[in-house]
């Protein structure tokens, strides 16, 4: 029997496919928001086939893939997707994508950094005040019934007047800087390149920035250059009162050296949302009152996730309509 295919009849089998190897958290939480009349999803994780076989059998004509931090887009995967033209990640970070291979093949990458900046900055500043003013530690003191017995709790340190060094002055960094200015902090920064029209002093490397700062906030992407960029040397330059806040990627900091510095009192404290080997966190940190830990969560809100959904769908719909993408990652 013949099927009459009307051009206006977008039955599911006609819609172009977007491959998902493993669902981004935001997809799992809000799948209904990803429904579009312009594309459908090819869900590799729902198949019992090994991944390479699945891709070979079913993903030959796939032009776009949706991923996130937990769903790596490696060289091997790209090689199994001969039609791939677009990688959309629901995350801010892009370190899980083989960017060299994408560049080589002309594959465009979009991310969702823009929608997470405000929430990320709120989290970074919240963690900084927490560590400086011992908010979580004092809460523990009260919660354990120690106030009547022990009286005063150790003093924190004033935020106003502190020199805060921002590592990476992109969306997150700028949003954090704006907030810190309202508290009377002096903002300094390090970036790959100095930014024109930015009123904050620029430092060409993290060591010099740390030497001149009371706190460092890590807001940059994870790349080959930034891996373990914050090491023992940088932390010693930051000093015994210095505080590190990391809301970017765990591997930007040499975690082993950071744990040593914290345990030995070479730096004053840390607020960490990310780690080198999540969800594993070095147990030495559990006993430290001057360290505040978050399970890669404090930067996220439902609003941020909803906005990420919209941005992801927006990018995909633009792609399939041959319109300009909303948030492609520019090569710098």
């Amino acid at each position, binding site marked *: 029997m013949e099927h009459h295919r009307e051009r206006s009849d977008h039955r599911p089998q006609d819609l172009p496919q977007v491959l998902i190897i493993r669902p981004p958290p935001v997809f799992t939480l809000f799948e209904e928001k990803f429904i579009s009349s312009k594309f459908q999803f090819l869900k590799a994780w729902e198949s019992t086939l090994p991944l390479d076989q699945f891709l070979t059998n079913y993903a030959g004509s796939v032009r776009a893939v949706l991923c996130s931090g937990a769903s790596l887009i490696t060289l091997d995967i790209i090689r199994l997707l001969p039609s791939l033209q677009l990688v959309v990640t629901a995350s801010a970070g892009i370190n899980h994508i083989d960017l060299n291979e994408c560049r080589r093949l002309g594959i465009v990458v979009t991310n969702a950094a823009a929608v997470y900046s405000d929430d990320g900055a709120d989290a970074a500043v919240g963690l900084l005040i927490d560590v400086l003013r011992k908010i979580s530690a004092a809460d523990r003191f009260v919660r354990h019934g120690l106030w009547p017995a022990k009286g005063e709790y150790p003093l924190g340190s004033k935020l106003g007047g502190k020199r805060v060094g921002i590592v990476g002055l992109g969306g997150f960094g700028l949003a954090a800087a704006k907030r810190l200015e*309202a508290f009377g902090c002096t903002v300094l920064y390090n970036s790959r390149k100095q930014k024109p029209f930015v009123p904050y002093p620029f430092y060409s490397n993290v060591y010099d920035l740390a030497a001149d700062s009371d706190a460092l906030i890590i807001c940059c992407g994870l790349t080959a250059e930034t891996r373990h960029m914050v090491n023992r040397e940088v932390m010693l330059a930051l000093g015994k009162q210095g505080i590190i806040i990391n809301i970017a990627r765990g591997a930007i900091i040499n975690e082993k050296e950071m744990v040593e510095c914290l345990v030995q009192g070479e730096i004053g404290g840390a607020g960490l949302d990310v780690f080198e080997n999540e969800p594993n966190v070095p147990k030495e940190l559990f006993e430290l009152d001057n360290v505040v830990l978050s*399970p890669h969560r404090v930067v996220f809100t439902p609003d941020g996730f909803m906005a990420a959904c919209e941005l992801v769908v927006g990018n995909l719909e633009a792609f399939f309509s041959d319109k300009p993408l909303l948030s492609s990652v520019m090569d710098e």
Partner: protein
Amino acid sequence: MAPQNQSQPSQNDLPYVLILKPPPSFVIFGDHFFNSAKFQFLKAYESPLRLPQFLLAHAQSVQAVLSSGGAPVTADTIRLLPNLRLVVTTSQGLNHIDLSECRLRGISVAGAGTIFSADCADSVVALLIDVLRKVSAANRFVKQGLWSSQGDYPLGSKLGVKRVGIVGLGSIGSEVAKRLEAFGCTISYNSRNKKPLVPYTFYPNARELAANCDALIICCALTDETHHLINKQVLSALGKDGVIINIARGPIIDEKELVRCLIEGEIRGAGLDVFEHEPDVPSELFALDNVVMSPHNAVFTRESFEDLRKVVVGNLEAFFSIEPLLTPVVLDDQPHFPG
């Protein structure tokens, strides 16, 4: 015998400043913290005598008292100090001083001025972010090793879309507003009087303010009017998604009612630096993840104590040099404070 150097008064000549109970600074730094070459301290708390006896026996010539929140200056005390001309307090709050009696007797009062406002406002923001984004609760979760075993922690809530309602738009309230605006929040307030030239929406009472905000921040003084200002009606108006932050005075909130609302989920959460019966905190709060507590130390930083030292010593030295006080409190329009 060599004549005494007249430019250096001996210890016996220095005027006395009476202290009823040691202020927090003495507890933390030692009782030399406010030392000066221009006065000496008379420490009532070091005497075995009961206070009225002590005052009658030793304090009749005293002109100045150094007070703090835990060392109230009541009308009874004032009446036992016939030469009292000045009360200096180490706190920004004044509710522990009988201001009416001071005004009646022409006794000057000097407080901490606005030196604590910035640190206090910083604490407010920290507590608010903590409650909304579950910072302390998630910290406990990770440190108990639950991330690897139990997986993801619940999401927190966005700050910038919150409507913030400030109760008491004085020095601290204004610093809070300035900071939260940088996070994108809209600010409204309730105060004794509407403030001209202030760009925030005014509400005539706490209940209406609560009904129109997502985060209620208590920054006002404790007075007869504000005692239990935040009651069942106000908390109900704040609602299930509302958060309350109190860094002012515990009795401004009906604590029993607050605890009940928190346990039953009638408000989203609370950040509390102050309580009705410090240092006792309702133990029901200890099990709640939507509450963040601090031991009345929202203003305590190393830097603010140094600022306080300068202000307290400065006020006392100015007084004894017959110079203007640094941070005088204007007594004419003070509301009535509970005794």
